[in-house]
């Protein structure tokens, strides 16, 4: 096709937010999902998830205490990160995040403390408090991207939902990996078994089925997103080209959709395979890599198209 106009010179545009931000999104997602899975047992009273929920309750604060370090490291002036605490702009999602990222890990630690103390009413209280906080702490990252309205890939109301559901996928996958590793290698370690009870076989299988459900929803959301990109404004269709045919197509189609979602989804539905620990672990690792690719593609491919 003959192009109507070609650029001879334009100012170079950098990609401003990259790997650090993608890592941050990945880790907050894992934290929020781990917390929500742990509340299944401790707040909603599904007793069989208790052992797995305990692992989730430990993963949640760890992931969330590490993740802001990547944000601070990504600042041009890391020493000024405290400005976020006392210079508040209620219209900016980054500003909401600076408070969520302070409150949520504290709540997580209190919740974990009462799980350790086995104080039922307190666990329930901080669990109920933590669910909206967990959704907010990861949902707001979706708003960070969605409210940057110049960037077509990000500026969609689906973004927070897409982020939350892929968080559930990655959190469940990580939980399966940790539970399987613990049951295979540390089965008879008395010190660990004192705090972490045995995760039953059936529970790990059930987590596998849960993972398949989350992947199905995630696939649906990703599908809706891409379809809407193709059928709407010119900016959107350019961005659809970037992720489907352009430089990010390998990462998006192969890593995120193919290996990260479709293959694990099919394998997890095959009756014989979805009960083998090895298969479950391999699939969970693939899912984690796929969600990492999703974070990276969303953050970087969005800024790939020059806006001016």
């Amino acid at each position, binding site marked *: 096709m003959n192009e109507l*106009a070609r650029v001879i010179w334009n100012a170079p545009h950098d990609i401003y*937010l990259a790997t650090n931000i993608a890592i941050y999104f990945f880790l907050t997602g894992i934290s929020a999902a781990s917390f929500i899975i742990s509340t299944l047992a401790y707040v909603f009273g599904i007793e069989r998830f208790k052992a797995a929920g305990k692992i989730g309750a430990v993963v949640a604060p760890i992931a969330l205490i590490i993740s802001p370090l990547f944000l601070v490291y990504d600042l041009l002036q890391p020493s*000024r990160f405290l400005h976020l605490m006392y210079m508040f*702009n209620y219209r900016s999602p*980054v500003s909401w995040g600076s408070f969520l990222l302070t409150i949520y890990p504290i709540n997580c630690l209190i919740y974990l403390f009462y799980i350790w103390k086995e104080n039922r009413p307190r666990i329930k209280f901080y669990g109920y408090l933590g669910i909206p906080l967990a959704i907010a702490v990861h949902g707001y990252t979706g708003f960070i991207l969605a409210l940057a309205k110049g960037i077509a890939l990000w500026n969609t109301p689906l973004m927070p939902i897409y982020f939350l559901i892929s968080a559930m996928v990655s959190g469940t996958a990580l939980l399966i990996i940790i539970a399987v590793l613990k049951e295979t290698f540390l089965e008879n370690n008395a010190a660990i078994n004192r705090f972490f009870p045995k995760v039953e076989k059936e529970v790990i299988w059930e987590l596998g089925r849960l993972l398949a459900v989350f992947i199905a929803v995630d696939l649906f959301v990703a599908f809706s997103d891409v379809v809407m990109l193709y059928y709407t404004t010119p900016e959107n269709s350019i961005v659809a080209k970037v992720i489907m045919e352009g430089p990010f197509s390998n990462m998006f189609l192969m890593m995120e959709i193919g290996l990260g979602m479709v293959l694990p989804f099919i394998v997890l539905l095959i009756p014989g395979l979805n009960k083998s620990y090895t298969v479950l672990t391999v699939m969970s690792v693939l899912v984690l890599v796929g969600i990492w690719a999703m974070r990276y593609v969303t953050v970087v491919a969005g800024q790939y198209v*020059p806006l001016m």
Partner: protein
Amino acid sequence: MSQKNDEHSRREILTKGLTLGALTLGSLSFVQFLPASLQSNETQKSKKVRYGMVIDLKKCIGCNACVIACKQENNIPIGNYRTWVKDVERGNYPQVKRGFIPVLCNHCEDPICNRNCPVKATYQRPDGIVLVDYDRCIGCKYCMVSCPYNMRFPHPYRRTADKCTFCVHRLDRGLKPACVDACIGKSRIFGNLLDPASEVSRLIASQPVHVLKPEQNTKPQVYFLNLDYIMVEANKTDFKYMEYYRRNVPAEMGITEKQAEENHTVLKGKCGADRVYDSTLKANANRVGTV
């Protein structure tokens, strides 16, 4: 005895001085927490000024004088631009035409960068100029991805966000922005949009003007005469071209990053505009707000 008295008074003076110093320090740090719009007294100058620009693309010859003027005036490092001229080729042989689109910060009426800045480092003066408070900015780069016009960049040496200021230091002295003064074709026309007698108001009222990306709803205040949207949207689907123009410009010019930094420090010693380079400075020094 007298020695004792002396000591006493000396101590008194010392304590008084220390308290005074602590007080001034305290008040200073308090002033720092205020948004910059409250700190400067120049902002209260006049509520009847709203600066804006009209760019007549038919008159632009692509000489890049505005780009050079901006770089000299504001001491912009190599590889970064506050304003630049997009150079576009339109049509196919033998029907070919060359076009230029000078772009700069639109100083929007509803700036998304201002809304998204988490520490209120970006602010808008009453006369509509969108500025960055370099002491508040933490460099989170969220404004750079928020701007639908890609007008912001991380200043490599000051390490904050940076953008076009409409040469606010010149405006406050009654001069026009450097790019407007340097424009040889008189393509860039600058003035007060609220003054019905100014040339910008006259042009906007009488000519068909366009803004860039009106659908972004930021209400840009840089208007274009004879804007061709096909040229604005040129090459957006060509991934090879995008990869090419993403490359670092200093590297392309054979200059290492270290050399660029050295050049920068040798040239000025510090970042940002500190002097108004204009022969008419003395004549205009007292004429404030007469642009």
